[in-house]
């Protein structure tokens, strides 16, 4: 039998074909360079597979909507935008590889929709620019850096929970946090905020690979807490909800900012607690917005829903925050590749998004506790401002 393996190595060299290929490449080169000059390349890191894919996928879709709508309206300053996405799978090593690849492609801005650990891993790579935007509440960038966080911080979220509990006369809280970097930040914020507000805190940790949180929840329930809070983010947090149901618990359950999404609610549809609450930006319930904010949010909602045929959720909104900041930078900064100029611009200029995003020379966190609402899931799957704990199930589920 004739041995065919490696036969391609013996193909004769074809000078005519090679010359033709070289000529094509040389001809295409200037055209490619011109196309690149006529567009802004924006790097996007978003986990679209792995344990927090529910977080990354929806944000990426929002950014794609932004790319499409900007380009359909003629671009920004006459230049189109082109997103270059890299899936970091919420893995810090992979995120660094993604960032290196994107920086090598000379992206103007980096939009990082990943979670705490991977975002932190990328931050040293943008010490000299370009500007990186992220919506992760656990990231508190130093004002000297080129990193800007467009959401409220985790401390702001925690303060909003504390305010809500105080309004409800609740003095004890049980908290479940993951054993990863996000969980560390959540526990640190909770220990900083709740005792100061007269709320006794009991905590339990859950391993990211665990599929059962019964023991952790039992530990909290044995402390007789009237409200439970799970800061665990991503699809794997469904194990907390299932275990809550397995134990027949009845306390209102507050879930994390990143899980106020249709994707997460779909995961737990068979195990919904009587009262499922969460921390969210106010725009999740348009009734909490002023007229201008509502107008901007509705414009996005209509455009996105017409394109995707799906309802917007919190993850869409926080990605919109990044997109709006990016639009403002590309529109108003003469050279957006100059990270110093972009930083100076963002320090001085509030950005109008679903809510106003304000940075300053003192803070690279764009929102604060006033931008946060405690919301509650309704029967129809939407989120509305939560009534106090003692008033029972507002949504009637």
């Amino acid at each position, binding site marked *: 039998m004739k041995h065919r393996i490696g036969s391609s190595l013996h193909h004769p060299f074809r000078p005519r074909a090679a010359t033709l290929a070289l000529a094509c490449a040389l001809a295409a080169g200037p055209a490619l360079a011109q196309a690149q000059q006529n567009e802004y390349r924006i790097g996007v890191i978003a986990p679209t597979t792995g344990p927090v894919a529910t977080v990354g996928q929806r944000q990426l879709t929002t950014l794609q909507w932004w790319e499409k709508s900007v380009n359909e309206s003629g671009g920004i300053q006459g230049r189109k935008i082109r997103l270059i996405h890299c899936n970091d799978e919420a893995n810090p090593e992979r995120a660094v590889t993604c960032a290196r690849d994107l920086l090598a492609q000379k992206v103007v801005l980096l939009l990082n929709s990943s979670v705490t650990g991977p975002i932190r891993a990328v931050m040293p790579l943008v010490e000299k620019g370009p500007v990186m935007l992220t919506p992760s509440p656990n990231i508190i960038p130093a004002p000297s850096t080129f990193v800007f966080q467009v959401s409220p911080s985790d401390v702001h979220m925690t303060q909003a929970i504390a305010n809500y509990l105080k309004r409800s006369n609740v003095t004890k809280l049980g908290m479940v946090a993951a054993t990863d970097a996000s969980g560390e930040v959540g526990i640190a914020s909770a220990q900083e905020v709740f005792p100061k507000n007269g709320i006794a805190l009991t905590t339990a940790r859950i391993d990211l690979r665990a*599929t*059962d949180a019964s*023991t952790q929840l039992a*530990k909290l329930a044995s402390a007789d807490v009237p409200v439970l809070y799970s800061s665990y983010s991503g*699809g794997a947090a*469904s194990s907390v909800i299932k275990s809550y149901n397995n134990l*027949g618990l009845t306390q209102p359950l507050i879930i994390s900012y990143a899980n106020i999404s249709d994707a997460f609610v779909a*995961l737990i549809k068979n195990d919904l607690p009587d009262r499922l609450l969460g921390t969210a930006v106010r725009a999740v319930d348009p009734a909490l917005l002023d007229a201008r904010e509502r107008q901007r949010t509705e414009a996005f909602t209509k455009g996105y829903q017409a394109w995707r045929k799906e309802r917007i959720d919190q993850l869409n909104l926080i990605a919109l925050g990044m997109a709006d900041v990016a639009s403002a930078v590309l529109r108003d900064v003469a050279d957006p590749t100059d990270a110093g100029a972009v930083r100076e611009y963002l320090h001085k200029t509030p950005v109008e998004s679903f809510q106003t995003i304000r940075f300053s020379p003192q803070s690279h966190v764009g929102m604060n506790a006033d931008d946060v609402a405690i919301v509650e899931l309704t029967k129809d799957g939407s989120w509305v401002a939560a009534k106090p704990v003692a008033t029972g199930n507002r949504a009637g589920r």
Partner: protein
Amino acid sequence: MNLLTQTIYSGLMSGGVYALVGIGLVLAYRTSRVLNLTHGESYVAAALTCALLTEKGVPLWASMLAGLLAAMAVAVAVERLLLRPRTSWPIPSLILLTLAAAFVAKGVFLLVAGVDPLSFERLLSGRPIRFAGGAMPRQGALLIGVGLATAVALTLFLAHTPIGRRLRASAENPDAAQLMGVNVPMLRTLAFALSGALAGLAALLLVPLVAVDFQAGLGMTMRAFIAAALAGMSPFLTILTGFGLGLFEAAVTGYAGALAQDPVVFAVLIALALWQSRGIRFGGSARA
């Protein structure tokens, strides 16, 4: 709520699963002498098949049956397509082959079911059973009962029925068994099918309480292997070690915290393994 009681309940539920999956691993090991690292993928295949079919509106009982068949199909495929044609290969190579197959299965599950955890309805719903300050879902009680009963029944089946005796004979000395007229290849296939069915049964009972994703297989294989290894690959002792492992994990999580779970569990297990292998280290008979 009493933490000790709840820890015991959680441990018994996990233990029931580890016992079932562990016995399946032992069954396949004892008839093939190969540690089947694809075993946990049968667990995932059953759970994902059932979850995806119920999502499509297929009745729960039919979805569960399909899940069980999927689990058996994965196990039989490993035996028929991977192991049987390569009986001349060294055992470590065959074990690596099953590990490779586990990664392939994981990729297939990712393509078919996506990244998010999936689950399906419970067989028994309603308020949990409350006893001694703890709460146990009705499905959890079913899981413990069925797990224990199946494990004991299988052990008795292997010890006291003609097929069970032939299975054991073909495991102990396949050549001699073949000479005695035992159809060894057929019995190996049967053992792998049973092994897959046990993993599938564990998934169908546990997953309504917890959820499963495409990458859960190797974790389940690891725990099953720990239970089986501690039991010296004895089916009966695997029942005890499976439940013991579940209780131990729950106690560490409950009293030392999730951060301590892996270091403590593995430190104790390594110590136990060293203790078990003392015969080898000090020149005695091989036990591990």
